[in-house]
């Protein structure tokens, strides 16, 4: 058996890489994908904890996270496309105002 701590360590590493991507990159699409990466790392930790607890609650939680992530991606990409129609350039440095 693989110890639970290994899963948690991998989850922490992946989450950190995702956060680094959010901070380092300027393309909003790549930032968005990094957020998905961090979300998945958190899901992995949830499943690992759920299996340790021996019930299905962790998996049910991950199921809800997936549903919310699907909605979030749809809305987020629509916003990025809408901004791109006006701005023609994709960099979050240009988007510091909450209006366009």
């Amino acid at each position, binding site marked *: 058996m693989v110890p639970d701590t290994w*899963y948690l360590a*991998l989850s922490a590493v992946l989450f950190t890489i995702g956060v680094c991507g959010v901070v380092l990159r300027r393309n909003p699409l790549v930032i968005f*994908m990094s957020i998905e990466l961090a979300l998945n790392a958190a899901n992995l930790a949830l499943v690992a904890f759920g299996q340790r607890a021996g019930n299905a609650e962790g998996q049910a939680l991950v199921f809800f996270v997936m549903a919310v992530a699907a909605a979030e991606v*749809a809305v987020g990409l629509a916003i990025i496309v809408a901004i791109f129609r006006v701005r023609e350039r994709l960099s979050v440095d240009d988007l510091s105002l909450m209006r366009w």
Partner: protein
Amino acid sequence: MPRVAFLLIAALAVASALGLVLRRNPIHGALFLVVNLGCIAALYLMLGAEFLAAAQVIVYAGAIMVLFVFAIMVLIPGKEETGPDPRRGWRLLAAPLGAALLVELAVILLAGQAATAPAAAPAPAGGVAAIGRLLFTDYLLPFELTSVLLLAAMVGVLLLARRRA
């Protein structure tokens, strides 16, 4: 043996995550993210969460990443693929790799036929039945709320995507 498998999958997951963050081309990043999501699905399988592994492949690696790739292709048009392939030798490796996969699947199928059908094992704590029961009893209200959320997201996306005159 499970530890070796875990380490291999974990290395692949970390490498693909780094690829997503460090590669300049967003399309490469998206493909790296697909690899990463696949690795996480494999880890779900190792943890015994079969339902989530399937949902991960269908929802994330399928639906969400298609949306991402679609948005990248719309927003950042790349160069068209013309002229001689600079990496033709690498791509020819696809044939032996595909053959190896086929042989592997055949071996697994034959081994499964040779073995006697195992007696139905008792469902583990995190089985599909347990999740289904939980979702439709204790988590019924959140479950229904997600359907409202998805509907709201759909309407919102339609509103955002409409071209303003």
